């Protein structure tokens, strides 16, 4: 029981810290929204080794953190992107796809969710012109994240991170 609480707390703090870390990286000129996607790692980990509700609550925590630090619109974007991402990843998990595919889907759907939120918030469908850049970066960083996850899961399982 204590192990579960500790693990949940660790995952929550990891998620938030990673989202801070990835915001600290330079925003590329002319490419808004391209991010490393590191904050998806704890979410994916909890999808694989724990359960879906924990992954969803990680997304909610991340959005709450965005609300506290960056404001209302950032929170909405994070919610939209995160929830869509987690839902699609969970669906893909059921079909036993490769971890790379799950990660890429998570990244792309996160970006698509954010774009959809922006277009609804300000009634401007033209934001989707950014989608090619985001699809490519989502794919690249999705694969990177999958590799990272593959590398770290064995070590985390050894420390007793599983069920």
């Amino acid at each position, binding site marked *: 029981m204590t192990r579960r609480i500790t693990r949940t707390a660790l995952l929550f703090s990891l998620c938030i810290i990673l989202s801070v870390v990835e915001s600290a990286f330079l925003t590329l000129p*002319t490419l808004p929204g391209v991010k490393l996607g590191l904050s998806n790692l704890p979410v994916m980990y909890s999808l694989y080794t724990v359960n879906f509700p924990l992954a969803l609550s990680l997304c909610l925590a991340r959005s709450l953190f965005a609300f506290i630090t960056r404001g209302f619109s950032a929170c909405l974007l994070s919610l939209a992107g995160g929830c869509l991402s987690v839902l699609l990843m969970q669906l893909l998990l059921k079909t036993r796809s490769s971890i790379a595919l799950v990660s890429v889907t998570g990244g*792309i759907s996160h970006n698509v969710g954010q774009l959809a939120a922006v277009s609804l918030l300000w009634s401007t469908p033209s934001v989707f012109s950014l989608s090619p850049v985001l699809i490519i970066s989502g794919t690249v960083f999705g694969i990177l994240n999958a590799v990272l996850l593959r590398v770290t899961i064995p070590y985390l399982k050894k420390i007793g991170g599983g069920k």
Partner: protein
Amino acid sequence: MIILTLILAIAGILFVIFKNGSHGTLYEVSVNGKEVCRESIYKKHRIPLECGAVIVCDGEGVYFDSSDCPDLVCVNTGRLTREGEWAACLPNEVFLKVVSK
């Protein structure tokens, strides 16, 4: 593997479609979802907004010159010239878009 190639192909096609827009002639500035001004891109103009962002038009393109927001994504987006290009300052809720009529 096939799926990944498909995804990248779609991205490439979309990229080509969007990047070949015509040169814009007007730009729109919206704050909080409401249109604040609509000017010609050929006229040099400097628009300081109440929220803290400054939009500058230099006769050929329009861009966020400076902003008081913490992430500066708007300023980093750079210069917009083609129709359909946009930049946004999320914390200040400013949206800048290049249109043509």
